[in-house]
């Protein structure tokens, strides 16, 4: 891939082959690749320019203030509409989701790496993980709608939304946990066993602390995916505009992306500006989560490499 092309000097000196068409073809191809590669960059620039432009219009022409926007609850009048209840609902959703996916993710990964015998059941569980990761998010939404919202009679509450999001992102945590548990050197397990520790003691005191940074990174990335998800929450029955702030797992809810969807869907220009501001808040949250994930990875990468020797 990095191999340097030797000049055409030898070719030219022996026979007078005209290579100009070859050179033209090569240059054209390179130009095409460059143009294609810049497509994504151009789209990203347009995307951000568009968001900030709409948000700026909202501030200038419709008098939407950031303070009011962050402090008010949902409202039918654009000037009073705020993001506060959606933010709190998202915080609740994330708080519940993180508990479910950490517990389920770590347990499943521990079973698959430390305990699972190499048999058909194990292979079924592993193959199923790849399948689950490919199921569209709306489908998880209607699953929870049928099972929890209507089946268990819970109604459209935050807990049901958290179930849908957990089902959606738990494969990410499982895969990340499996990788970081496998990365713990066997020597450490053997050393622990040699001091008389049982398997569970070894896992709890040696394997888990070692693999925790990797698990945390995977969990944060999974949460970042979950916090931006809209479709499963719509299916579960999230409110489009929540005028009250949710106070617990059994309250009805909106969420940041659902509120953004509703504002984008409404035809008035003011709401588009509100959506743009909501998107900025959502993207800032995502950016912070990514930063934390990168920080954890950087901080512990060194430690693991030291002890891993």
């Amino acid at each position: 891939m990095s191999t340097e092309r030797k000049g055409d000097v030898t070719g030219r000196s022996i026979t007078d082959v005209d290579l100009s068409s070859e050179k033209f073809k090569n240059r054209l191809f390179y130009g095409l690749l460059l143009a294609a590669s810049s497509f994504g960059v151009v789209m990203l620039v347009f995307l951000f320019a568009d968001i900030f432009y709409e948000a700026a219009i909202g501030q200038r022409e419709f008098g939407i203030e950031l303070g009011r926007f962050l402090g008010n609850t949902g409202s039918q009048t654009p000037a009073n509409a705020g993001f506060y209840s959606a933010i709190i609902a998202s915080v609740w959703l994330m708080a519940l989701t993180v508990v479910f996916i950490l517990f389920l993710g770590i347990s499943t990964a521990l079973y698959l790496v430390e305990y699972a015998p190499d048999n058909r059941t194990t292979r079924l569980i592993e193959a199923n993980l790849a399948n689950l990761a490919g199921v569209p998010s709306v489908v998880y939404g209607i699953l929870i709608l049928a099972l929890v919202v209507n089946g268990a009679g819970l109604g459209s509450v935050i807990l049901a939304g958290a179930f849908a999001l957990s089902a959606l992102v738990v494969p990410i945590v499982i895969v990340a946990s499996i990788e970081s548990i496998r990365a713990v050197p066997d020597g450490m397990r053997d050393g622990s066993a040699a001091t008389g520790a049982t398997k569970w003691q070894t896992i709890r005191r040696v394997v888990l602390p070692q693999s925790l940074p990797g698990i945390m990174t995977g969990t944060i990335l999974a949460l970042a995916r979950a916090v931006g998800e809209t479709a499963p929450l719509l299916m579960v029955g999230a409110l489009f505009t929540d005028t009250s702030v949710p106070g617990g797992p059994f309250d009805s809810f909106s969420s940041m992306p659902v509120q953004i969807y509703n504002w984008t869907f409404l035809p008035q220009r003011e709401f588009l500006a509100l959506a743009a501001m909501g998107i900025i808040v959502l993207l800032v949250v995502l950016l912070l989560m990514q930063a934390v994930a990168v920080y954890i990875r950087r901080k512990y990468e060194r430690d693991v490499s030291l002890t891993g020797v």
Partner: protein
Amino acid sequence: MSTETQGPDLSGDELQGDRATDRNIKRLLFGCASITVLTTIALFLVLFDNAAGYFYGARIWEVLIGQESFRQTVSFSEFFTGTRWAPVRAPPAHGVLPIVWGTIVITVGAAFISLPIGTATALYLSEYAKPQNRNRLKPILEVLAGIPTIVYGFFAISFVTPIFVSAVGALFGISVGRYSMMGGWIVVGTMTIPMVSSISEDAMKAVPDDLRNGAYALGATKYEVSLRIVLPAALSGILASYILAISRAIGETMAVSLAAGYQPQLTANPFEEIMTMTAYMVSLARGTSAVGSVEYQSLFAVGLVLFVMTLTANLFNDYLKRRFQEVYR
């Protein structure tokens, strides 16, 4: 993990206790692991059960406990060949074709954007880019992949359709509404580029340098090496990335519903509004559909069709991935 563990006591009883704890832990962990399998089983059961309610007017469990009996309400021939989809309207029509068509046409249109551009980006990254350009481009693609789909929906409604698609439509003398098929192509195509480029690049990087050098030694140019050596050698990985992008486009919901709209119709005009299966599901969320009503059940019938489509794509992807791994190990 709040399970009690014993201190260092060497009596036999304690050892027995430890062993029992270990066994219980193993059972607990197995229980957690099997939840993932149970989720899949639940998906199948729930989808089939409610879809049965749609086609036969009774859920499977209702028939099993003898509460109801099957009576055909929607025939399969109407469902799969009917050309009008309006299960909620006054004279109901149950032809799923228009919304399946919507999903297919969006997926194919998006593939025409994401597959060539993604492959070209991967070729550039793996064969041509200098390290510093690579290090600049890769994070940008990651950002593109990490942006929530609702943001792409916003982008479609506030920029792509009113500015870009309208301009193209004006060339043909067509006025474009709030939603358009082409807007769907562009946003879904853009958001799936990173999937194609990152997985294809991995596959291209796995091609041994010896193959490239051999071709160079025969006098091949870089263009020839890229197209005739690297692409064919990485083909199965590249195909896997295509399948993944297509599967993602099929299941894509928010961006598509905000870009392409909510009007189920069999049209090939890229400036018209259409409805995908996922957009139909979202449109039901905007109304309140009572449990057991036709629209509620139709949600699951459509969900089942969607699930089967993406499952097929994923299984095919699994198969390709296994082949891909075999080649280079």
